[in-house]
């Protein structure tokens, strides 16, 4: 049977006078020697205040100044157009199938052109559901959909958040 070993640290309810590490003698008064440290701290904050020694303000004042977007950023979607100004999309449903958030809705119709069979009649993305994973972009065989660098996705109603084909093409 194991005997309980004595704890190395004193229990939490030990009184301060029982504490063997309690400073004695001169060390007891070291507590009051923080005045140089206080002055050092004050001078440091003052240097920040007057922006000396290379300190600078880090705030980006957002609506006027926008933060630079890193390459590879995934923002709002865009449908691309080809050289003749037609949408590249051929309504193959690849993006709708791969989308993990089920936010893409495509209704196909027959294309009026000879180089493809179908084109999207309706192409809607529910931006409230979208998780900006970029899978649609990767799945697309025609390179017709891509994620832009637009990140200020704002609207005043839920209905506005369902982007239709025109919105996506002009994005």
């Amino acid at each position, binding site marked *: 049977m194991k005997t309980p070993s004595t704890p190395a640290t004193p229990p939490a309810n030990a009184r301060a006078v029982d504490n063997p590490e309690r400073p004695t003698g001169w060390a007891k008064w070291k507590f009051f020697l923080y005045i140089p440290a206080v002055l050092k*701290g*004050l001078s*440091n*904050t003052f240097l*920040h205040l007057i922006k000396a020694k290379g300190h600078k303000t880090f705030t980006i004042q957002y609506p006027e100044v926008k933060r630079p977007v890193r390459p590879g950023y995934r923002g709002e979607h865009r449908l691309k157009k080809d050289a003749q100004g037609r949408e590249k999309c051929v309504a193959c449903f690849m993006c709708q199938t791969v989308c993990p958030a089920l936010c893409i809705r495509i209704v196909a119709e027959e294309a009026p052109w000879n180089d493809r069979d179908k084109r999207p009649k309706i192409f809607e993305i529910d931006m409230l559901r979208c998780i900006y994973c970029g899978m649609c972009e990767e799945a697309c065989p025609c390179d017709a959909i891509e994620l832009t660098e637009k990140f200020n996705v704002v609207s005043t109603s839920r209905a506005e958040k369902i982007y239709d084909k025109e919105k996506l093409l002009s994005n």
Partner: protein
Amino acid sequence: MNLFLDATRAVLIFGAIMTLVPMLVLAERRVSALIQNRVGPNRVGPMGLLQPLADVLKLLFKEEITPARSDRVLYTLGPLLAFAPAALAFAVIPVGRGLEVAEISFGALFVITATSLGVYGISFGGWASNSKYSLLGALRSSAQIISYEIAMGLALVSVLMTAGTLNLSEIVVRQSHLFEWNIFRQPLAFIIFYTAAFAENNRLPFDLPECETELVGGYHTEYSSMKFAMYFLGEYIAMIVMSAFTVSLFLGGWNPGFALPEGALWTAVSVGVFSVKLLAVLFFYIWVRWTLPRFRYDQLMQLGWKGLVPLALANIVITGIIVTLWDSLTGS
């Protein structure tokens, strides 16, 4: 006629403090932002100067909440008691040559009495809220203010010994030349007094009654809307009063460091000098707040009782010896 003049002075000085409070709040926010490499409120009005107005309007339109099982009378009395004594103390502070609401023979004592009444507001509020956080905040406040009041009073005593009077206006008049300022005569008393003033006003590094990281908001956790605004106002007015008191006691009050010539123009100058000194001391308050972390409770008590009180007592003894020797040598 005399009464009318007194009333005008009272209204003017009170109005000046009440205007200074919102500006001080804005200054606090802007200075803290600059220290932390931020920008701070700069959207409302030119350079954010109308931000205090927006703050006040927001507080006015907030819902007034009284906790269900609170003590209604004390709950209402708390903010009033935090606010009124602080404003009261300003009556004896000379803001310019011959410009004080009331010149009374025990002015210094009056200020320290009136400002220490502020603890009742905090204690009442904390007790009446019927909340653990508030009660703890109130308890800490009482303990802290009582402890630091002793150090403050003792530091004041040594100043009064060199000044030889309790009349605050007289104390200021006697500091007309730069080297007569009490900060040079009593440097130790100044440090003790100013440290205790921070504790008295519940400012960082001694803001244990409020202590947002442990006690949510301390004594004003349950307060909202205008009652909270009253506490806020009281806190800042207490800060202004304590700064003005420090300026009058140690920094020569309205004296620019040399003897002022007679004339109304120079009286106006003296008001300007006082304002500049007051603002500098207030800036130091803000500066310290955004530099130092909060003391632990036992550290606070240790500093008060083991540090400041013995130092202040020793200072009194030294001052007493020097004053006696000086008087016997100069034969006065």
